[in-house]
């Protein structure tokens, strides 16, 4: 489309709409933009310049990123770095709750029995429970279970006991949203196709493995992306369940860094971007699926 066409299309009212939308867009991006600009400025530069203006001359530096990286992860060979720890929690928890949610949704959709609505209601309500209301029993539960005793034979896992607790906890609390998302997807499946398989004598398990699961791929993308973001971004569970400093996840490390480098805004901003990098990447690459997951919450 040429510029001339563009101009023709614009009446004054439409121009106003575009201006408003652009300003709003700028508003949404402003914290990120000023954060990014601050992260590539020296201490002197960000104290003396306007936050959103890019640095010039010797005001530019990548030093904050090196420093933030050292705090958030350290060398890539360090497998107890905060980013690794977050991945150690987020990846298994996401895959587990996704798989479990898909199976549960199958049991609650394509097979019919009464009382289903009641069970579903418990799943839906489970999405909305404020974590504070389970926090005290949750810590008590893991104290009583004493997971580290069972893991004595595997030192690698025993030293990560807090993270394993996080994986199980996140999986359990992720099941409701995953189930609901999958169920809304399965509810639109063609009934007659499943009926035909049933008449052919396929068992329920077989129908799931051969028909439902392969057809679930698009929804798995939505669920995994959404759930990964949720688990990676979690702060509260990690705050109460992880005690060992070597098991700190990214959000906890970021909060600690912010507390110890109070005036070093450039390092803080760089660290914030490093902690957010996986979720930002996922969002930029799969924004569509993320939006769909978000919509499923409603």
């Amino acid at each position, binding site marked *: 489309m040429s510029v001339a066409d563009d101009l023709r299309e614009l009446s004054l009212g439409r121009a106003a709409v575009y201006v408003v939308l652009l300003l709003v867009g700028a508003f949404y991006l402003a914290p990120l933009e000023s954060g990014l600009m601050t992260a590539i400025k020296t201490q002197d530069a960000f104290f003396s310049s306007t936050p959103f203006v890019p640095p010039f001359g010797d005001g530019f530096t990548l030093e904050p990123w090196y420093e933030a990286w050292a705090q958030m992860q350290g060398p890539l060979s360090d497998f107890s770095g905060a980013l690794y720890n977050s991945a150690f929690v987020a990846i298994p928890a996401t895959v587990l709750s996704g798989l479990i949610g898909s199976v549960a949704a199958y049991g609650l959709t394509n097979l019919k029995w009464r*009382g289903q609505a009641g069970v579903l209601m418990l799943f839906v309500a489970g999405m909305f429970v404020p974590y504070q209301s389970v926090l005290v029993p949750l810590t008590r539960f893991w104290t009583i279970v004493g997971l580290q005793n069972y893991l004595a034979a595997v030192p690698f896992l025993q030293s990560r006991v807090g993270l394993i607790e996080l994986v199980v906890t996140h999986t359990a609390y992720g099941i409701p949203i995953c189930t609901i998302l999958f169920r809304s997807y399965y509810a639109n499946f063609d009934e007659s196709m499943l009926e035909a398989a049933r008449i052919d004598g396929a068992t329920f398990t077989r129908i799931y493995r051969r028909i439902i699961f392969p057809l679930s791929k698009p929804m798995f993308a939505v669920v995994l992306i959404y759930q990964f973001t949720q688990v990676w971004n979690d702060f509260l569970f990690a705050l109460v369940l992880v005690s060992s400093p070597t098991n700190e996840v990214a*959000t906890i490390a970021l909060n600690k860094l912010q507390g110890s480098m109070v005036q070093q805004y450039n390092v803080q901003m760089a660290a914030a971007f490093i902690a957010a990098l996986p979720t930002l990447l996922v969002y930029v690459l799969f924004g569509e699926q993320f939006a769909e997951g978000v*919509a499923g919450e409603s």
Partner: protein
Amino acid sequence: MPHSIFRRLVSLGSDGDGDANDANEVRTDGGTATATGEGTTRSDQSDRSLLDSEFVRSLPFWLPPALLMGLFVYGAIGWNAVISLTEWSGFGSPDYGDLDFSMYEQMLGDPTFVVAARNTVVLLVVFTVLSLAVGLLLAILVDRDIRYENTLRTIYLLPMSLSFVVTAIFWAWMYNPEIGLINVVLRGVGLDFLANDWISDPSTKLGAVIFALMWQFSGYCMVVYLAGLRAIPNDQFEAARIDGASTLRMYRRVIIPQLRASTMSAAVVLMVFALKAFDFLFVLFGDTPGPSTDILATMMFREAFSSSNWAYGAAIATVLFLLALVVIGPYLYVQYQRGDL
């Protein structure tokens, strides 16, 4: 591709075409009306045994996940309620032999609790209303065949993909009194007198937090409302226009009432996020945000995990849960009534 999501959003949020199966299912579930529709060809007897066997055979699929989730969610809520009746504090374990409501009595006489409860309600209501209003306005603007709609939507929704910890750090920098963007901009446009130490001044603290949270979640409201707007048939817009309704009146009289379902589902999600705003406050202020910004979630954490007043913390947590229940109860009821479950 960009429109497929909206179709899905629509079929999730309203009684769109995709729900035909759903309605069918509920009828079968209800049990009373099994003899209608396709069911008529089978006898009631075989229908029932089929239902029973389907129930049994579906058990291995949903029961283990339901139990795992039930243990962590509902088991924990129940356990939390029991702990709130004990006197448990400090090291050691709770004594379940002596249960009473003393923690709740202590709570009612605790001025900190009253303040935190009030702040929680203010945060809940103001944040929700503000985000919905901004989201609706944006949705109406974006719905006017805007070019680059997808780009805009991506930008608006971006903050929601970020952790509260990340956004809190960004906003602490935005609100910096000397060199933060907010004050720099205010001074730049000649509004020096408005510049403030936003997150230290007790009179603006809560407002500043609400504003930042609105930034993070209004894009989400926009997405929900946009889907709602797209679900309204075009001829309704046309009809209102022919009737000579002014744009503003048309939206108020014709369009907004039809967005009730969108409003409701967005409001529920927002309120739940508001109850979870703990992370944001904790990163900014630690476990003691001070009386102007203390909410039940931060107070609960402080009592339980900083002061080891476990029973008292559990009692506050129970109140928080009841608050959440007040919010989601009606929502669940409506969902059930509409047959969306």
